[in-house]
């Protein structure tokens, strides 16, 4: 199967030299449009991607609501309601689910054979994967902004400029989580295995982070959990977004998120490279799994 999917290396290299920037952009646009259309056409996905964080905001945060305010921690300058505290975490949650969902779509593409169309393209593999990743991030950022717009009417507001300043933070966090999803998708052979991703990746990452509770509170409750939170890259994605809302850069978070993005992306590119990657290895052992 891999032989069919991938052109011979020599041919591909010869092909690549013919492309200029314009061709690369056409390819990127094509992937972006495809991903965008897919998202818009799947109305359930659009709705569910919004309903999930809104449920957390309206139900979880309302029930858990500390009506007397959350203690002041940076970047907050004054007391905030729990709804305000949890919002950057919910933005992160959208990015996390979306990143995993696009990995799901890659598994689906592979099962349905659509992936061949993509991978047979003469463009370099890394470029195709990065384009696919960018398309996923773009779609998830739109979801975040729609969510924030609804939250605005729920009196969850940040300084106006913050909505612009979070854009780079959302982009980077989205890249990291999307790359993670892509890396994971290279290791999943069948769609059914995706439930495992939910249980073993999404939920632990989300819950063992600063998304729901400030880390000082986690530390009070369980020093072990606090250490786990500190090892979780998702914590840093959330904090990066939280500080950006208030016009601040959390340098540690920025460094951690950037580093993990490179690691995950590198892993995904390697994994999708048929000559070295995990696909081949998995297919070798595929029958046993």
């Amino acid at each position, binding site marked *: 199967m891999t032989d069919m999917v991938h052109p011979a290396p020599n041919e591909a290299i010869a092909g690549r030299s013919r492309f200029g920037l314009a061709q690369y952009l056409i390819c990127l646009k094509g992937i972006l449009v495809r991903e965008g259309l897919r998202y818009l056409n799947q109305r359930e996905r659009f709705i569910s991607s919004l309903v999930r964080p809104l449920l957390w905001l309206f139900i979880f945060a309302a029930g858990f609501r500390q009506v007397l*305010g959350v203690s*002041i921690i*940076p970047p907050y300058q*004054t*007391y905030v309601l729990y709804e305000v505290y949890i919002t950057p975490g919910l933005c992160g949650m959208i990015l996390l689910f979306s990143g995993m969902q696009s990995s799901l779509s890659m598994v689906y593409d592979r099962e349905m054979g659509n992936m061949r169309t993509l991978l047979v393209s003469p463009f370099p593999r890394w470029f195709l994967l990065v384009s696919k990743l960018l398309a996923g991030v773009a779609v998830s950022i739109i979801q975040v902004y729609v969510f924030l717009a609804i939250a605005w009417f729920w009196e969850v507001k940040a300084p106006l*400029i913050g909505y612009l300043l979070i854009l780079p933070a959302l982009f980077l966090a989205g890249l990291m989580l999307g790359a993670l999803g892509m890396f994971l998708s290279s290791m999943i052979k069948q769609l059914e295995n995706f439930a495992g991703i939910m249980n073993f990746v999404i939920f632990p990452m989300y819950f063992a982070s600063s998304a729901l509770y400030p880390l000082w509170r986690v530390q009070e409750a369980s020093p072990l959990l606090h250490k786990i939170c500190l090892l979780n890259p998702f914590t840093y994605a959330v904090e990066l977004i939280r500080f*950006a809302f208030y*016009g601040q850069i*959390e340098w*540690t978070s920025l460094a951690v998120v950037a580093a993990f993005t490179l690691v995950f992306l590198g892993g995904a590119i390697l994994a999708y490279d048929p000559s070295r990657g995990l696909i081949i290895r998995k297919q070798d052992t595929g029958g046993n799994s």
Partner: protein
Amino acid sequence: MRSHMSMLAVTVALQFAAQSAWANMVYVSNEKDNTVTIVDSGTMEVVKTIDVGQRPRGITISHDGKFLYVCASDDDTVEIIDTATHEIVGTLPSGPDPELFVLSPDGKTLYVANEDDNLVTVINVEGKNVIAEIPVGVEPEGMGISPDGKTMVNTSETTNMAHFIDTSTHEITNNVLVDSRPRFAEFKPDGSEVWISAEIGGTVSVIDNETREVKHKITFEIQGLRSEAIQPVGVRISADSKKAYVALGPANRVAVVNAETYEVEKYILVGQRVWQLAFTPDGKSIISTNGLSNDITFIDTETDEPVKSVTVGALPWGVVVAPN
């Protein structure tokens, strides 16, 4: 280590714009650690802390901004502090347990509520002598004065009354029954009404200054909070008489009230057990003292959003901002 830096020059510029050109000193009395904290209203940072007498509560400033007056309740005196040197330069004979006071519009007379003695003491500031002692209800506290200086209103916490006092005769002219435990009296700057907060009653009574009758009662409701937790204390009304701010004690919120329709427009989350309020002279900010969280919160009066909370001393009680 976390280091914070502004993300864009834009935000830096915005922050500078937010810090108005006129920075005024904010003086906060800290009831528990016997100090006054001085905060710069522009940078919103603590400048200095000065030691004062025991249990400082009521605090106000002379109209020229040169002298600060602080009720040192447990020292039974009002201390005068020079705002240039931050030294205590004298005292005023306030009578026992002074809690709250109000300075006459001409700045010459100070009216002090003596909580334990059921008296209002009238002091000549310049001569530092007592002009009169007016017997009022039990546990006098709130003190308000009309913009023309002719009428003074005192509230008595246990008698649950607002006593209207003629400042020329020092006689009570009207007694108006309000809700339980009235804490604070604030005249509308146009002189038409007096607003009286009732801590236990949970209301603010609006008294017409002509008829001397309660014409409206403002009630408060915060989703998710028991009504007992809503205890109105400090009240301030904007210079144009259009908007009022009411500190709601353990509800940790300041209510924004339309002073024309008496509708509560918003509740602003601040620190714990918010007590007193003070406007900056330009009216662009109002500052709340949050007793149990040992901080004050700056609120932007244009957006009615809390801007920043600043830690001060233990149990901040009263607040006053220096005039321009």
